[in-house]
């Protein structure tokens, strides 16, 4: 398993061509996809064409950091002309007529797209098992989930079915699957990456980000996809030209916040031990650990789900069986066409969330639910601001447990929602967070530690994650 940095060196030294590299990844993806189900669509012909163009660019001396690097893309990010399903029956045959801005930016670099990866339907879930195309599996144990919603992307990276991947994160959907699959995933600061062409779930929380074999690779991808975009009013020019620039700088004297609520009841002992061991590593390297408190954490799951579902109920109103997407047969009226198309086209979890969001926004409940959730979100912002006034970064578990068995939790939405406790606040506040492997449980399943920093300090979380990764012995996936 090679990092992007290593592959770049091999391509530039002509030790391998992009076409050869792409064929290697495609062959591995073809041979493993039956078992892992990481990809919904594998784009062999398109990928080889892109690789050929990349080889020309390399030969002409015009290679950029991602030229010729084979990537996978979550199936909710639009690539023009390539089926983009959102893992839903609703969009089973949808072919976007434009590229997401993140894809346009990767095109400028000459990256290669191997295919579109599996996920929870409309990015709603933490296991990827709500996919209309069947759930992907964890490469460390194929009886277990890879996490979600970017489970296919994380599984593809862990199983070496791509060099790195794009995911999206609304409440932990990059970080939690990265933790479950033993890879590194970065949710950038909200606004760093344009959301144009990312199929919307909850627009004030959604963010595209990388999943890769190292924090440095995440930084290399972020360098390519970050930036202000006129198509997304919430995107920002962050003023950062290189998100890997702090790599190698010492952590000596830095203050690391350890919020006590993240280490209480509900977090597995093995997870706690591994995260404490990671904290100890930083302490031994001169950093200071500071116990802090986020008392509002007890409202994190409820406020997140109320806001995310409220936004989802609005965003998903566009699927009406008329302009694009699934359409029911033989509807006798316009109203029946819309209602039946939506009932038949959306899976159960998506329908549950639309109903919940509609409930939270409906007359008589708005103040009690939506407005309260917004107030809690403001409180989270205040509490995090106060922490980052005193500390450089914050260290927490990425998930309360390791990856669970595929048939566990699936029929219990409340249990599934509660499992998001460690990740949702980062989206509510909008801060950058990276998850990197920090240990393995008694069954050899990966455990992830999350490192967060203040808004637009993405380079800092990459620095800390890289510092930890350089001494951590990773165990390869068993597949």
């Amino acid at each position, binding site marked *: 398993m090679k990092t992007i940095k290593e592959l770049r060196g091999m391509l530039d030294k002509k030790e391998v061509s992009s076409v050869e590299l792409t064929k290697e990844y495609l062959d591995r993806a073809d041979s493993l996809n039956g078992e892992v189900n990481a990809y919904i669509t594998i784009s062999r012909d398109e990928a080889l064409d892109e690789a050929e163009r990349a080889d020309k660019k390399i030969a002409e001396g015009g290679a950029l950091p991602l030229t010729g690097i084979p990537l996978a893309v979550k199936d909710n990010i639009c690539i023009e002309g390539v089926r983009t399903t959102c893992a839903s029956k609703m969009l089973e045959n949808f072919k976007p007529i434009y590229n997401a801005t993140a894809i346009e930016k990767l095109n400028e670099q000459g990256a290669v797209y191997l295919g579109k990866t599996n996920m929870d339907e409309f990015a709603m879930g933490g296991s990827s098992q709500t996919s209309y195309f069947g759930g992907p599996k964890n490469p460390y144990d194929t009886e277990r989930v890879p996490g979600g919603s970017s489970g296919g992307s994380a599984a593809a990276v862990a199983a070496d079915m791509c060099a790195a991947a794009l995911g999206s994160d609304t409440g932990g959907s990059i970080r939690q699957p990265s933790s479950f699959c033993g890879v590194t995933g970065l949710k950038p600061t909200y606004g760093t990456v344009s959301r144009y062409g990312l199929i919307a779930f909850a627009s004030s929380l959604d963010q595209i980000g990388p999943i890769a074999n190292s924090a440095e690779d995440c930084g290399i991808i972020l360098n390519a996809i970050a930036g202000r975009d006129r198509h997304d009013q919430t995107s920002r020019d962050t003023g950062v030209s290189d998100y890997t620039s702090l790599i190698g700088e010492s952590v000596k004297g830095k203050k690391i916040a350890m919020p006590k609520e993240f280490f209480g009841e509900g977090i597995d002992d093995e997870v706690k031990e591994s995260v404490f061991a990671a904290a100890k590593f930083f302490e031994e390297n001169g950093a200071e650990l500071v116990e802090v408190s986020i008392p509002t954490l*007890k409202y994190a799951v*409820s406020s997140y789900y109320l806001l995310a579902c409220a936004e989802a109920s609005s965003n998903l109103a566009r699927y009406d069986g008329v302009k694009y997407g699934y*359409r029911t047969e033989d509807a006798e009226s316009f109203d029946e066409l819309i*209602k039946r198309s939506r009932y038949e086209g959306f899976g159960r979890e998506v329908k549950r969330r*639309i109903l*919940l969001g*509609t409930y939270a926004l409906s007359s008589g409940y708005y103040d009690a639910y939506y407005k309260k959730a917004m107030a809690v979100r403001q409180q989270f912002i205040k509490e995090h601001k106060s922490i980052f006034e005193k500390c450089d970064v914050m260290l927490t578990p990425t998930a309360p447990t390791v990856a669970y068995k595929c048939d566990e939790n699936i029929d219990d939405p409340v249990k599934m929602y509660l499992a998001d406790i460690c990740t949702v606040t980062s989206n509510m506040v909008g801060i950058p967070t990276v998850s990197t492997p920090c240990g393995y449980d008694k069954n050899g399943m990966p455990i992830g530690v999350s490192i967060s920093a203040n808004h637009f300090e993405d380079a800092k979380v990459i620095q800390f994650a890289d510092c930890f990764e350089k001494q951590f012995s990773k165990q390869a996936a068993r597949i």
Partner: protein
Amino acid sequence: MITKEQLNLLCELSKLRIPEEKLEGYAKEMEDIIGLMDTIGESDFEYDPIDMSRAVPFGELRDDADEVFGNMRGIVENSPKTRENQFVVPKVVD
């Protein structure tokens, strides 16, 4: 407690036609989920809309200018039913 009547109203607002025989299952799930959401009632923070508008990092708005969009064919090809570049829907008026 979410009644079938409440759920029917939510379905109407959400534009979802859930068959009668499935309503009870959905009502039970929604009840459990709303039970979890009710924990937010214990919080006593006040929402400040002005503060929130500052917290959302909106950039400058783009110019309100016309742009030629050339891919009408692509739009039509994604529609499940069209005729002569128009979307087809059931009759709306008699």
